[in-house]
């Protein structure tokens, strides 16, 4: 009984990017068991076999171990079955801890050095903190020697997982480029066009985007779900991260963004709700929200998961700038007694192109492994996107190298910025006051940063 209780607890989903089935509908797809890996595209077989050949030389697939993994989402669980086909004697115990609590639960065990999981995840908000804290092993060193294998990983994944000294400490199964997820039918109605390239033309810069929003408003259609969505894109519009050399930097683009938020609020271009509010989600099924500005996870876990009546009416196009936002990384604890088994799992989850293709074909997630994404881009498009292939689309976004500006301070700083932007937009304070408030909030959270 106890075991059962525990396992029920383990399946708790949280964090923003693991949202499937949160609406009033039953959870989609994710409950299906992964099918056998018979669907691998022909062209990759040779490659894979080669990989396996080298693995057999170095890794014992019969090794016995018990791995403890802490994850802020339930995705890792989806890999276990496939992993156990290769490594039948490695038991994988995954504990899901909500993202909000993840760090405060992890810190005490790391600090005490007891009961530390062999592998634990880190979300984009704080992954840099963990990477720089040196609690994860360097994967380019003993016993991993992963340097060569990392070539098949998107730079974004690799760079975020690399610390200031150049040690690669964390990797991910996913990459999270963004898009404007828009309604084709509404675009046709208001703009007279519906194909991604054509719609993109109406969103080529932020001013143009707001003009387009005005056009939709005239037709009683709200352009965005929430301005908070747009912020995800605007963050990649910056040239500089929030913190450079220990100094808080407010990129000029972010100051401009405050006015964009104000305009969206005042002219009611969004639903005036926060992300994940029920109305925000309900907007997917309504006929008066034109688009959601969200990365890969937003499409698969929010839009696609909730689109029933609007199934097939969606498209992905680019906004003013290419962007990339969010993601979950994982690394191996530096003092783990099960490093070999942990690496076997991590390799399977992040570097095994075959496994990732299978995973992606079931769950529709864009993955961190380039060859897997390339293979999937050859497939047929998605029904929900009216035949558009999301891998092909995201590959294009990745090719444009969106600016990546993740720092270890992002979680708190983004929240402080959102609060300031909201206070300014709703007219409580002036723009100067908003920036002052923002700086003060950052100083409060991170007293060691230089703030001018």
């Amino acid at each position, binding site marked *: 009984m106890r075991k059962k209780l525990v396992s029920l607890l383990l399946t708790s989903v949280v964090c923003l990017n693991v949202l499937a089935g949160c609406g009033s509908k039953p959870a989609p797809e994710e409950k299906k068991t992964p099918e056998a890996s018979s669907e691998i595209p022909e062209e990759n077989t040779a490659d894979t076999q080669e990989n396996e050949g080298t693995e057999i030389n170095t890794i014992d697939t019969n090794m016995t171990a018990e791995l403890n993994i802490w994850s802020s989402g339930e995705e890792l669980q989806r890999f276990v079955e496939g992993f156990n086909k290769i490594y039948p004697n490695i038991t994988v115990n995954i504990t899901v801890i909500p993202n909000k609590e993840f760090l405060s639960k992890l810190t005490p065990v790391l600090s005490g050095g007891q009961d530390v999981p062999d592998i634990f995840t880190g979300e984009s908000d704080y992954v840099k903190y963990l990477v720089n804290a040196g609690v994860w092993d360097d994967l380019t060193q003993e016993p991993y020697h992963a340097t060569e294998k990392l070539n098949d990983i998107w730079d974004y994944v690799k760079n975020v997982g690399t610390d200031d000294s150049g040690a690669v400490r964390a990797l991910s199964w996913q990459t999270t480029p963004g898009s404007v997820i828009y309604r084709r039918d509404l675009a046709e109605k208001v703009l007279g066009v519906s194909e991604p390239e054509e719609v993109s033309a109406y969103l080529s810069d932020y001013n143009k985007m707001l003009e387009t929003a005005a056009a939709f408003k005239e037709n009683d259609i709200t352009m965005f779900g929430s301005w908070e969505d747009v912020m995800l894109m605007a963050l990649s519009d910056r040239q500089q991260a929030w913190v450079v050399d220990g100094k808080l930097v407010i990129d000029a683009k972010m100051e401009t963004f405050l006015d964009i938020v104000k305009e969206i609020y005042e002219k009611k271009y969004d639903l005036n709700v926060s992300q994940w509010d*029920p109305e925000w989600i309900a907007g997917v099924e309504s006929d008066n929200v034109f688009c959601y500005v969200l990365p890969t996870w937003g499409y698969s876990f929010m839009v696609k998961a909730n689109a029933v009546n609007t199934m097939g009416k969606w498209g992905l196009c680019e906004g003013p700038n290419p962007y990339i936002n969010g993601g979950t990384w994982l690394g191996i604890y530096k003092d783990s007694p099960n490093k070999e088994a942990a690496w076997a799992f991590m390799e399977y989850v992040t570097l095994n192109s075959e496994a990732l293709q299978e995973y992606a074909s079931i769950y529709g997630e864009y993955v961190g492994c380039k060859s897997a994404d390339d293979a999937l881009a050859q497939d047929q498009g998605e029904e929900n996107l009216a035949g558009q292939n999301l891998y092909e689309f995201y590959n294009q976004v990745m090719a444009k190298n969106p600016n990546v500006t993740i720092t270890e301070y992002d979680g708190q700083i983004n929240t402080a910025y959102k609060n300031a932007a909201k206070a300014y937009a709703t007219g409580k304070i002036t723009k100067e006051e908003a920036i002052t408030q923002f700086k003060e909030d950052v100083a409060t959270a991170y007293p060691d940063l230089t703030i001018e």
Partner: protein
Amino acid sequence: MIKKGIKNFVIYGLLLLLVAITLVPFYLITVNATHSSFDIVTQLNLLPGKYLIENYRKLQEYVNIWSGFFNSLLIAVVFMIVSGYLGALVAFGFEKYQFKGKRILYMIVLASMMIPSQVSIIGFYRLGLKIGLVNKLTTFMFPFFAPGVSSVSTIFFLRGMISQGISTSLLEAARMEGCSEFRIFNRIVLPCIMPGIATMCIFNFVNSWNNYIGPLIMITDTKKYTMPILISLVKGIYLTNYGAMYLAVGISILVVVIIYLFCSKYIIDGLTMGAEK
């Protein structure tokens, strides 16, 4: 007569208004826990709906609310019994015995109320890490000091009761009979102040049951999460599944309400009787 009627009208009107204010949130929980999330956000619901089972199923899908319930219950019961018994013992020691430094020691007891649990909490956390207490014993030890105020008030309250309710001559008589001091406490003092102890036990139970910040900091193991922690996570987990969230709140409340239905008379009578003695 008319004047009396008006007076009654005012009094009962006031009382009923307060009853309504008190109970409205309970009613809203009941109504919303039985509706689908869609209904909750799209319309005003004033009558219970039919989605209870569905909401419960959804709730169970991600979190086992009952494991949190039993963790909380276990901690609260242990805390309640121990703080009730020891509180009475300490109160008895202070009230019926003469010893050097009694005044100062009692001042310390009262002054310890001034140390908020938050002051100890950071130190306790650091200490816990150093000696490896996180997740271990603390699950059970923590409640003993976190609502420290309550056990001090137990001592304070029971001391008053002993002073009023138990005459020194009674104790002397017992001693004449050859009763040991412990026996006097267990056989004479305890039964006499039982209503008061029961009352304080309920208060202590509630304090422990409601303790949020303590377990929030000290428990990292999901299996040991208490009810308040699970509840605070519910919003993160169900995000927009309002029906399930209301149901979780409802379950955390329902059981307490049921217990209360059976004990409320005892709690309040206990207080009154204790005070009258």
